[in-house]
């Protein structure tokens, strides 16, 4: 286990190193300068600005400096907001994103499991049909369409929730619903298929033959065994939420990193784009690592040798 963990963490660091390197050199390939009005500036002014951002050094020196900074969590200074370090920009904005993302994941998966389990138990009835319809709709409707509809009908028309901005818990409800639809649909579908499989297995027959109550069979044997593989889709769901958050945060004007990413892209704020790319990959790597370890713990049949399949 310790050996496996060490290996995985080594790969995590290697991955991040490659991500940093690739994004750094991609950014160097980009056309344009951070200056908005280059024509109006004198040579010495440009020189001063370049010096301030460290852009006058050779590229390999900039790269090494960036790498050294990134290890300490320093991603340079934002082009868009002068004098604002990127790390500060990210750390002050990551809270809302994490809160909404986690809420969406938790609410989505829990509801999805419940819906999926009911669908499997009442297989081929209207309950099952509803499950299938809900899950296929959740997968097909893009989160940003859902976000606008929720904002208009529940926020503006019904007036139950604030339509935008960031405040207390009540402000997180609509974004959470918009982002949670996808995890809900995916996990409902997954749990249903998995549980239909489990319900027809021999040990369920045995449990029934032993005279266990129906809830006992469902809860102790069927549900638990169908939930284990659910861990494998947590990684892809996290990607979905990160992707969705970029647009959903914009729609609800939430001061999160997704909104910042889009803003930085539109204003060519390269240091912030790079910093956010690294943060996104770091979060995803950690999620993948945790799910892999969890999977090994809950299902001892999985060998933790690091070899896929």
């Amino acid at each position, binding site marked *: 286990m310790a050996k496996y963990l060490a290996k995985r963490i080594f790969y995590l660091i290697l991955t991040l190193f490659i991500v940093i390197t690739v994004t750094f050199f991609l950014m160097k390939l980009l056309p344009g300068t951070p200056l908005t009005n280059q024509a109006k500036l004198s040579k010495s002014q440009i020189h001063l600005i370049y010096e301030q951002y460290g852009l006058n050094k050779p590229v390999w020196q900039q790269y090494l400096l960036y790498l050294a900074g990134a290890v300490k969590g320093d991603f340079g200074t934002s082009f868009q907001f002068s004098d604002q370090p990127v790390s500060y920009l990210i750390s002050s904005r990551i809270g809302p994103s994490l809160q909404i993302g986690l809420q969406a994941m938790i609410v989505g998966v829990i509801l999805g499991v419940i819906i999926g389990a009911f669908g499997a138990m009442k297989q081929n009835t209207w309950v099952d049909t509803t499950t299938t319809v809900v899950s296929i709709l959740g997968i*097909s409707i893009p989160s940003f369409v859902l976000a606008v509809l929720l904002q208009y009908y529940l926020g503006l028309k019904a007036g139950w929730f604030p339509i935008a901005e960031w405040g207390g818990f009540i402000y997180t409800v609509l974004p959470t619903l918009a982002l949670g639809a996808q995890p809900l649909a995916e996990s409902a579908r997954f749990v249903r298929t998995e549980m239909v499989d489990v319900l027809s297995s021999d040990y369920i027959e045995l449990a029934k033959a032993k005279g266990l109550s129906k809830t006992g069979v469902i809860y102790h044997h069927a549900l638990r065994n169908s939930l284990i593989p659910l861990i494998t889709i947590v990684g892809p769901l996290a990607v979905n939420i990160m992707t969705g958050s970029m647009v959903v945060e914009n729609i609800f004007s939430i001061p999160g990193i997704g909104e910042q990413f889009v803003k930085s892209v539109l204003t060519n704020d390269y240091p912030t784009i790079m910093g956010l790319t690294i943060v996104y990959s770091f979060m995803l790597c950690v999620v993948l690592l945790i799910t892999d370890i969890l999977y090994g713990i809950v299902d001892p049949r999985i060998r933790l040798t690091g070899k896929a399949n």
Partner: protein
Amino acid sequence: MADTVKLPEDSFKPITSDDRAALDSEKIAAPSLTFAQDAWRRLKKNKGAWVSLIVLVVIFIMAFGSIFVSPHDPNAVHPAYANLPSKIPGISINGFNGTLVQAGERIDAYKAAGASGAHYIMGTDYLGRDLFSRVLYGTRISLIIALVATLFDLTIGVTYGMFSGWKGGRIDTIMQRIIEIILSIPNLVVIVLLILILKPGMASIIIAIALTSWVNMARLVRAQTLELKEQEFILAARTLGERPIKIAFKHLLPNLSSVIIINTMFTIPNAIFFEATLSYIGIGISSPQASLGTLLNDGQKNFQFLPYQMWWPALILSIIMLAFNLLGDGLRDAFDPRTKE
């Protein structure tokens, strides 16, 4: 002991050839079906998938047919006819009869704009362009992007996966590590970075989506190849001295086809979704070109007052995604009957 078995007289008659044919228990009455025919038969039984297939064919014909026959020019601007609601002749349900609520009163917007004779099935946008034509045009652009990206993604993914699975060993390990690294960055982030470098536009969106979405295909194809290459028919081909490239095309590819087709059905809606997201946040298709994403973005600005401008593209986008998903599910069941029931 005195009992004797009394057998009827005719048991001892010789069997005629007609009788033999009727008695032949080994005979298979139904015509034998090829794998594709069998899959097709199962697909037709799946109502959702069948309807989806028809819906998709209709959408394709309408989107691509609008190159030749479009109700209006999707880019023709008529400022006088701006923001007209949907009007379908002969239907007088509010929402489809060209009326809209203004200052608490329901008025005929067409009369107010001096366009009593005209009718726009989905209404017009803020520049007076026919929304129906624009939706058809946008659907076409979205579909082209998705299909071309998927084609690239197929080629890269299938080649990569087959190569990795076939070679095995160290090469496989390294190739899998590369995939793991790509998987650890959210796709949209990579796509955005690539588009920044390539400058926004249709070609760069296609390249960016293609370069990021082949990974899933490669993984599935690799897993299947690993399984297939241990089987006897591959061993036979190898023993007979067939070249690996020929084995790949003649023996592996036909056996991989169902995995590839099914995965394509999920790649296409993903590509459409990514394109819509990019256009929605403003780094995708730029005007006067339109895609479903840009139409949604335009429609969203006026959603409070003219909700139909967003409803139509949203509806079409969702229907396309839904149809591809259902068709993909149906194809999976059709190709692999073990997964069903």
